């Protein structure tokens, strides 16, 4: 394992120190339990939008804290959901009368720990709602399983709900908006290589030189299918088909296309894949109105990419375009 670290046990804490130093104008980091909080939180009269999860997916979530997006982020250990007391600390640090929305990615650990935190916060009289995002079409959904994972759609959900909270929407409205976004966003991911978790010291799965994992999550879990490497044209076509056919997205739909690097895939490849996705969507008559291209929800150094499609309407587009000032997403400010 080769990493720029001192000790696997202190990676997250030390990294947060760097984040705080680099972005003192937009966020602050509180210790023990570690949370990342908007520098001006609590923002009076505004709904707090809070998310979190295991670390190793940066910039998610800490890099999205700031004006117009997250009010707080709760980073767990690498690939491990944060504990309820950390989530509760984030709620307390940011939540006033307007209440808070917790954005939870659908993993057993995240759901259970956030659930407990929400109960604790409710017991203190705070109005806290939770939404669970499960946009990964790779996983079969069923009430008897853990259900679909939350992946790329999380970034879009955080941006859009953060914008709604920023403009002063009430908690009911922000929650309803979140459910709407979750209902119309879908993603799929592939991995070319495996990430290496610092405390594990070895790649999370073994992949031959001519194999890829199709339908990967963001935690180094193997994908749903191991297939031979294929051309970018073929790979992206398969991904587009998986996402489009799921919702389904149809001719004339306006969408946001999010082409995401899992961390180790260079931009030159990512833009190449994005270009293919744009062409394939155009061929289907799907209208790409907004796009996001880059490493925004990653899995450490894993090479690979994901595609996310969100069906847009005027409201969502307006909220997407609204000013945002965070370490990783910034415009209009």
């Amino acid at each position, binding site marked *: 394992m080769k990493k720029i670290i001192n000790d696997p046990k202190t990676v997250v804490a030390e990294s947060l120190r760097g984040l705080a130093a680099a972005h003192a104008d937009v966020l602050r980091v509180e210790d023990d*339990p570690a949370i990342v909080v908007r520098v001006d939180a609590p923002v009076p009269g505004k709904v707090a939008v809070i998310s979190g999860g*295991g670390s190793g997916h940066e910039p998610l979530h800490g890099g999205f804290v700031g004006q117009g997006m997250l009010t707080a982020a709760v980073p*767990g*250990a*690498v*690939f*491990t*959901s*944060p*504990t*309820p*007391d950390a989530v509760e600390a984030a709620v307390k640090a940011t939540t006033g009368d307007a209440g808070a929305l917790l954005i939870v990615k659908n*993993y*057993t*650990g995240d759901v*259970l*720990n956030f*659930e*407990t935190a929400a109960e604790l916060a409710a017991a203190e009289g705070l109005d806290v709602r939770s939404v669970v995002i499960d946009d990964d079409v*790779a*996983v*079969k959904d069923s009430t*008897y*399983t*853990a259900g679909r*994972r939350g992946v790329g759609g999380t970034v879009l959900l955080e941006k859009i709900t953060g914008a709604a909270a920023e403009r002063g929407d009430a908690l009911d409205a922000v929650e309803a908006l979140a459910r709407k976004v979750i209902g119309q966003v879908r993603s799929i991911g592939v991995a070319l290589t495996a990430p290496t*978790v610092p*405390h*594990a010291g*070895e790649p*999370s*799965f073994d992949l031959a030189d001519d194999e890829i994992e199709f339908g990967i*999550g963001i*935690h*180094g*879990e*193997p994908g*749903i299918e191991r297939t031979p490497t294929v051309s970018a044209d073929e790979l992206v076509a398969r991904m587009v088909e998986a996402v489009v056919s799921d919702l389904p997205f149809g001719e004339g739909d306006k969408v946001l296309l999010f082409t995401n690097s899992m961390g180790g895939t260079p931009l030159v490849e990512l833009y190449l894949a994005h270009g293919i996705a744009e062409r394939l969507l155009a061929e289907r008559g799907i209208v790409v109105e907004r796009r996001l291209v880059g490493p925004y929800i990653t899995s450490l150094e894993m090479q690979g990419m994901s595609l996310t499609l969100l069906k847009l309407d005027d409201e969502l587009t307006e909220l997407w375009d609204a000013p945002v000032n965070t370490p990783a997403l910034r415009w209009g400010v």
Partner: protein
Amino acid sequence: MACTAETLAAALRAAATVIAGHRVELIELDRAIGDADHGENMDRGFTAIVSALDTGTPETPAAVMKLAATTLISKVGGAAGPLYGTAFLRASVKLGTAAEVDGPLLVEALRAALEGVQARGKAVGGDATMVDALIPAVSAAEEAAGSDIASILTAAADAADKGAESTVDLVPRKGRASYLGERAIGHLDPGARSTALLLRAFAEAAR
């Protein structure tokens, strides 16, 4: 031998040593079908339990269990943190104010722990989770309810071992391994394994 706050604390310390010794094994099991952190998570939690106990042993067995539960909940995270935390918390509630735990009370506590895990995680037997180790362990403990604590725990540990083994042939339906579907067949569930390890450590400590 009945179980006091002191012996329970000693058993938790012994369990911490066992978990530390199997940290890498549990990471490897989780690496195969999950996200390679189960050993790290459990080790972090039990190391924290030992630190907490170092500041003084609570008065009753129930209080010791509660300390362990809250420590697990606040230090482990992931799926295992709330699930084991709930198990310990429910067991603690069942122990009530007893100064010593006898066989029947122990069995009740184990049953409560299992129910807590299932209430929280919604897994049933055959889903290839820690529940597959706990269900047979609790049944075996109930059958042995008349014997001494060591025998009850040994029976539970033996059954948990077998139950954990059974996950190898199952298609996981809960937790991270469920994403793999059929591909997870042939792999031991890490949480089932850690449950078996904990029960074995408690059994050994009770002798």
